[in-house]
């Protein structure tokens, strides 16, 4: 039973092959996990559905969402008007369909503004530390001291009604949480051997932050972003409902719910159906976010 251990040499091709194999296995496991989780599949379908509806709105709508046919006001759902009509004779179904575009635009723009901004603040604060960290984090804390909806409403009121202002207002309310998250992740990886090695090799701060730290923080940011999408949409709808966000005649779902409020008793469909759209879409994003988080969670992968 005497066996001399053979010295190991590093075989690059072998190492590369093994790494590629590991990556493939990771993707395969992710896919299996995704498929097993029925709710996650549902969520993804809803979000994809939203994207499709928004993209194909002109094809899916039955009427012009802005056209008012005053003779056909407040009609119940029928074969002609699938969701009925509102107080100005507009087809609610078509407005809901076009509203998908509005919702999607708002959500994406808010994310596009608040996420990079938050990440920038967070990574810089986390990596540089010291005074920069203190200042940036105090700033984030102050913004976080306000309940998000209230802050969004306050800024929306201050900036004036309109969907662009609403987008800015919501973004202002959201960036701090990304900043904190990015900072926490940065602190985690800042002292990795890998990053230390980069420093030793003489890489500048900016290069390290942008090229190395940023990718490492991406996965938790993405998870947070997908989980946040739902809240963003709800906030936007809330602003629309209060009259501070999208303005008539834009087919924004929150605004539509508000429009139908006075007719709630006899013409329930004017408020109920757009609200249902909000519910379904937000649920889809939440399911998706949950699913992404579950898939990335190492513990789930073991069982």
């Amino acid at each position, binding site marked *: 039973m005497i066996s001399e251990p053979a010295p190991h040499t590093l075989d690059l091709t072998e190492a590369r092959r093994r790494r590629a194999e590991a990556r493939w296995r990771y993707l395969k496991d992710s896919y299996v996990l995704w498929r097993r989780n029925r709710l996650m599949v549902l969520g993804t379908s809803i979000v994809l559905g939203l994207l499709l509806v928004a993209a194909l709105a002109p094809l899916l709508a039955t009427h012009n969402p802005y056209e008012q046919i005053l003779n056909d006001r407040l009609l119940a759902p029928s074969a002609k008007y699938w969701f009925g009509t509102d107080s100005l004779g507009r087809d609610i179904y078509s407005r809901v369909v076009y509203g998908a575009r509005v919702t999607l635009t708002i959500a994406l723009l808010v994310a596009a503004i608040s996420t990079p901004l938050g990440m920038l603040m967070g990574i810089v604060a986390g990596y540089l530390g010291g005074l920069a960290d203190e200042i940036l984090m105090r700033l984030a804390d102050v913004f976080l001291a306000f*309940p998000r909806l209230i802050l969004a409403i306050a800024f929306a009121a*201050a900036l004036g009604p309109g969907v662009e202002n609403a987008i800015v207002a919501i973004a202002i309310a959201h960036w701090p949480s990304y900043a904190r998250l990015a900072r926490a992740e940065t602190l985690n990886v800042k002292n990795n051997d890998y990053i230390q090695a980069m420093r030793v090799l003489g890489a500048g701060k900016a290069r390290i932050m942008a090229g190395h730290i940023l990718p490492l923080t991406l996965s938790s940011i993405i998870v947070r972003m997908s989980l946040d999408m739902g809240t963003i949409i709800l906030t936007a709808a809330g602003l629309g409902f*209060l009259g501070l966000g999208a303005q008539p005649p834009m087919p924004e779902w929150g605004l539509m719910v508000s429009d139908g409020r006075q007719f709630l008793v006899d013409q329930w469909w004017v408020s*109920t159906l757009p*609200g249902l759209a909000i519910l379904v879409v937000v649920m889809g994003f939440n399911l998706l976010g949950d699913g992404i988080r579950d898939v990335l969670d190492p513990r789930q992968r073991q069982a």
Partner: protein
Amino acid sequence: MGRYLLRRLVTLTITLLGIMVITFFISLVIPMDPLAALAGPQAPQETVDRLRTLYGFDQPLYVQFGRYANRLLHGDLGVSFQTGRPVFQDILKYFPATLELATFAILVGVALGIPLGVLSAVYRNSLLDQFCRLLSLIGVSTPVFWLGLVLLLIFYYKLGWFPEPGRLDIMLLEPSRITGVLLVDSAVARDWEVFWSALKHLVLPASVLGLTGMAGIARITRSSMLEVLSQEYVKTARIKGLGEFLVITRHALRNALVPTVTVIGLTYGGLLEGSVLTETIFSWPGLGRYMANAFLTLDLNTIVGGTMLVAFTFCVVNLGVDLLYAFLNPKITYTAS
């Protein structure tokens, strides 16, 4: 514990200062000239100019901010354009109604949320778990204003099980105001008719407001329980021969509830924002509706004063929650000191 508290208080003060700055900034940005409103639409330019000097609006910004901060510290939040009364007085008047609503909502949230979360965790991945998760997911995804309308439609307009929006039957008089919380005041005055009516009026809005909270509580309870159930000391408890029920309640839940309690506290603070929408729908005479109106009519003083107070409260509640967490979890203060 003492040192930790001190550190947090310092942070709190800085944050409160920052809140004042932001609300001041908001007030500057609001597209409304309070002087023009004060002077009236007919006033000539010179009147407005004189008012400007009189009220110090021509002073540099930091001076203005200084005066603003000074007034705040004396409790002067200005006069509301809507009601014509001092904002501070209005807030005191409307606060109890919101407090009553929020407290009930939390009770709903906790009573439904914690059992839901525990069941979900214990029977992980079963059909029950999936169902509970779906339920709390719907709770988190539902637009509050829409749910309020739907519930009103079904339970009031169509079924008549619950009364009209508002706090009390129109016919009934409010009891003499001790705390402002109707349930308390009417109980003290033994006015059971009012008590009952107030309770019935509370159910729908509290359920709406509490539903989102319930979902959040259920989710954190579930994830916290799952985390705890995989810990070694749960295994130890089973090794000792404890029945599953005791393992879950005495060992797992006690640890799992620590983060849940903080979420409950945070939810309380978060209910402030939900109340803006809920109170609008249910015509609830509370802080939320007051603020909503202020935002819509651009009632400057109210917006500034109200937002600031809400932020203050939120901040203080959060601090309280953090302290509670530190208290409950002996490890935090131990390692921090």
